[in-house]
């Protein structure tokens, strides 16, 4: 394992971070395991493809646009499915499971739409959106796109962490995770906070989708599915709902995967995430970093 591999770890870890942060946020705050997250992520890439189809736009226009639209898609899911379920189903467990199924259905819908749009073909974002050039960084081979990915991931994760730990709204968000009923008494609207959380979660997925689609140079309807497995491992590793935990875990997972890549074989690589999930669940179910009590186990 050399410095070049470590650079790969940082790039892959950045993508995992962007993807997993949104998922852990909605789970931690709202008890929503949003399996549509992978589809929303894919939609980010798809939108970037659609708007750059005819004329190239700058990445700095395309990405914010994808983030906003993906955020709105997530809010839409919250409004038409998750919130009505919370209203109608009193039992916490039952409502979590109904929400999970609704999210699977919603994800399938987004994937079906994407399949229609792309006609089941692999498509790619217009390469002129961001001209990828080889550069070197501290003597290592890299591309300007990879530097952008790492920088954006760092920027967004630091912003989100500061927002959650320092700001007034972040405090409200953490309070909501603890006890939505009391939040209502204190004048925090659980509904409004839920919509805001879903927006942030979707926007993060959108950013990750654009960046990964650029990096792989492909968009396809099932782009998000493999990342879900990784995100599960990241969330379990970092502790559910912990954004800092997720960030650390994303890089740990990337490190473990690259390690298997180098010292074992590439085909084992994808099983690492599952192995980590099982081992963690067996020995440290609360996550490596989390101090939150293990939920009802």
């Amino acid at each position, binding site marked *: 394992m050399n410095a070049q591999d470590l650079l790969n770890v940082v790039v892959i870890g950045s993508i995992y971070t962007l993807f997993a942060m949104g998922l852990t946020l909605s789970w931690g705050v709202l008890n929503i395991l949003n399996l549509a997250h992978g589809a929303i992520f894919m939609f980010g890439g798809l939108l970037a493809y659609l708007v750059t189809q005819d004329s190239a736009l700058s990445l700095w226009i395309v990405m914010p646009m994808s983030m906003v639209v993906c955020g709105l898609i997530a809010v839409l899911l919250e409004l038409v499915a998750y919130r009505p*379920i919370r209203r109608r*189903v*009193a039992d916490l467990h*039952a409502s*979590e499971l109904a929400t999970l*199924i*609704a999210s699977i259905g919603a*994800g399938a819908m987004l994937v079906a739409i994407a399949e229609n749009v792309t006609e089941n073909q692999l498509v790619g974002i217009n390469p002129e959106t961001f001209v990828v050039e080889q550069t070197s960084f501290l003597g290592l081979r890299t591309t300007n796109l990879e530097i952008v990915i790492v920088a954006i991931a760092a920027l967004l994760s630091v912003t989100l962490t500061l927002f959650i730990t320092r700001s007034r709204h972040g405090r409200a968000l953490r309070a909501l995770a603890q006890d939505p009923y009391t939040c209502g008494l204190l004048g925090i609207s659980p509904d409004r906070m839920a919509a805001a959380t879903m927006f942030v979660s979707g926007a993060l997925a959108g950013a990750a989708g654009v960046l990964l689609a650029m990096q792989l140079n492909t968009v396809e309807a099932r782009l998000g599915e493999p990342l879900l497995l990784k995100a599960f491992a990241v969330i379990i590793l970092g502790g559910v709902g912990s954004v800092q935990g997720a960030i650390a875990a994303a890089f740990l997972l990337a490190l473990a995967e690259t390690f298997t890549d180098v010292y074992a074989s590439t085909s084992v690589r994808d099983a690492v995430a*599952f192995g980590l999930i099982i081992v963690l669940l067996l020995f440290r179910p609360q996550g490596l970093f989390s101090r939150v009590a293990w939920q009802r186990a």
Partner: protein
Amino acid sequence: MLSDWFSDNETLIQAALAGALLAYSFQIALRAGVFTLGGVGFWAIGGYTTAYLVTEREWATVPAIGVGLLLSAVIGLGLALVLGRLRALYLAMATVAFVLLVQIVAINWEDVTGGAGGLFGIPVTVSTTQVFLVVLVVSIALVFFERGARGRTIEAMRLDEQLAQSVGIDVVRERHLIFVLSSVLAALSGGISAVMFNTLAPEQAGFHLITDTLMMVVIGGAAAWWGALVGAIIVTWLPELLRFAEDYRQIIEAAIVVLVIVYAPEGIVGLVRRVRGLLSGRRPPTATPFADIAAATSPDRGHSQPEAELPPAAGRDPRPATQARNPD
């Protein structure tokens, strides 16, 4: 006439039968409150085992499927032991991860699974009638599984695990049993599908199959075995019924899942029980693992509230659901 209809629709009938077995696998788990989506993984394990033994080793069909079932039972038990502590979302997530892992193995283990392209030309060794008989036998077994003391045990586990434990139900053992049964049923569906449709590819055993099967159970209703059966039939014929929608078919199908889970989470079983309850003048019992609408007296209160799990809410039948239905 009838035989014409059978021969015209044979593929759909076959798909509905295989789908029903997989839907049963999901339904018995959901009815016991065990939220596993691992069935799709076991569907693949059963399918690939059967396909490999029949094609490469030239085994007879029945022992080949049998080995698939045995293997799934063992792996299912192992998974149950590892994931036994998990509940709800954590279990769902871990089992989805299991499904994705099985898919990865199927893509990479080319010697046995044929890799990403899958297996072609698996000999077709079962007839529709035989599969129909298998489904019939399984259905009858499920009728007995849902009745009597055993049926009530399982219902009690779903409604309140701690309470079930306090009246002497060995919840841990029961959950393991449910896990294994669910795995075996899924493997049966997979094995039969492999020798009925003569191809098997990793992409079949992914998210798509989870969605389809959940759709069957959600539309039909998880509270009774026949909900899964009715759901399987509806979902199988849905593409035919939605033929007019052409390209938008899959979008509409997925939208139906969302609508049903939000507005009729008890599915057809819940609907039938409600109607039957109205006719007999009794309040319907709580029908599914997903919903207890009667207890939702006020909108926001209740969600994420521990005490809401045993709601003394007004207007709710104070009798446990099991008693309400079986007044013996």
